[in-house]
């Protein structure tokens, strides 16, 4: 009987310890999952070439004009639209060349072209730099459109007969780079597409 008492006491003690441990360790748990998404922005532009109709009231997409005579003008309105989600800096290159009737470039006439073709470049909003690009002076916000780089291509009255039956080809290319984290202005910006 005397030996039983310590055994019962031991069992009771163990029970008390186990119960208190159980109480301390008891807890509810819950898990849940969340999907977190990171998206990258973009820089997208669209070069717009329009022309005024004969009465000048409406703008329509530019179409090639034939039979242009010296002393006349061709309407060609060049703008750039920001179609992306972010503000961008914009620059444009304009390459003009003369092709003969067979479609081959006449380098001699191309070289003299500046004397006979006049383009009304908007030098208020665009700045021509030594690298050969016209830079739009301000950043173009998402959805915005630049002021026209030019609106008229004028053939000089002095254009010589050598230009008869030739084609003036204007290759215009627009480039954009992000405004964010990219210099204080368009002239300091880098990352222009090649």
């Amino acid at each position, binding site marked *: 009987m005397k030996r039983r008492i310590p055994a019962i006491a031991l069992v009771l003690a163990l029970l008390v310890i186990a119960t208190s441990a159980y109480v301390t360790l008891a*807890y*509810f*748990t*819950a*898990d*849940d*999952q*969340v*999907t*977190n*998404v*990171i*998206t*990258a*922005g*973009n*820089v*997208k532009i669209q070069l717009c070439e329009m022309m005024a109709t004969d009465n000048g009231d409406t703008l329509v997409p530019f179409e090639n004009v034939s039979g242009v005579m010296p002393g006349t003008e061709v309407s060609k309105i060049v703008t750039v639209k920001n179609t992306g*989600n*972010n503000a961008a800096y914009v620059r444009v290159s304009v390459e003009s060349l003369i092709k003969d009737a067979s479609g081959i470039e006449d380098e001699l006439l191309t070289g003299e072209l500046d004397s006979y073709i006049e383009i009304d470049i908007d030098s208020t909003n665009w700045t021509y730099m030594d690298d050969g690009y016209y830079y739009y002076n301000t950043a173009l916000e998402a959805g915005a459109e630049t002021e026209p780089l030019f609106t008229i291509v004028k053939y000089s009255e002095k254009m010589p007969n050598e230009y008869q039956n030739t084609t003036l080809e204007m290759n215009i290319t627009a480039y954009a780079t*992000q405004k*964010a*984290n*990219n210099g204080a202005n368009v002239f300091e910006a880098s*990352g222009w*597409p090649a």
Partner: protein
Amino acid sequence: MRKTFRCILGFALALILSVSTSVAAFAESTVSYGDDNAQKFVFAPNDLFENFKNVMPGDSITQKITIRNRRLNDVKIKIYIRSLGANEGSEEFLSQLKLKVEQADDESIMFDAPADQTAQLTEWTYIGTVYSGGKIDLNLTLEVPIELDNDFQDAIGSINWQFRVEEFPVDPEDPVTGDESTIFLFALLCLLSVAVFVVLIVVRKKRAAEEK
């Protein structure tokens, strides 16, 4: 006189409403545990990386995530987090970005690695213990390299995180803590709103009785 009284009441109501909404306008993501005293998490918004959208090369963007214990009874919760990594197809984009997660209180870093990796959050990682009404803030920073290639324009990457909670009863020895947010202000504003409505109704009834 009546007109003036009406104007004042209208102004007071508008003021109460505007104050209520402006106080509630937080720009952080929240992980709440125990809303409506339920033992489950609520993520608001559903995507905790609310600020990490439309990221651009050279960006360094921060995101605050607040984890709240909203259980009404006195329970303390231990919060854990682990990352399951990037979803399939996200790896290449996310590997370009660097993500850092740190505790706002002591600025201890919990995660600092390319965003596609699980790194220090591969296993369940203890965030902290939060008492009823308390909170823990995490500060996240996402670094986008300026050299990020054009190919990643409009790229989308997603990362799965898991949260785990363990509930414990509060011991009498535990420090008294709680949410020190503006719950009192909200309660006061609610009471004020009710009082104003009651006054309006009483005035209207009184006026109707007078007119009869």
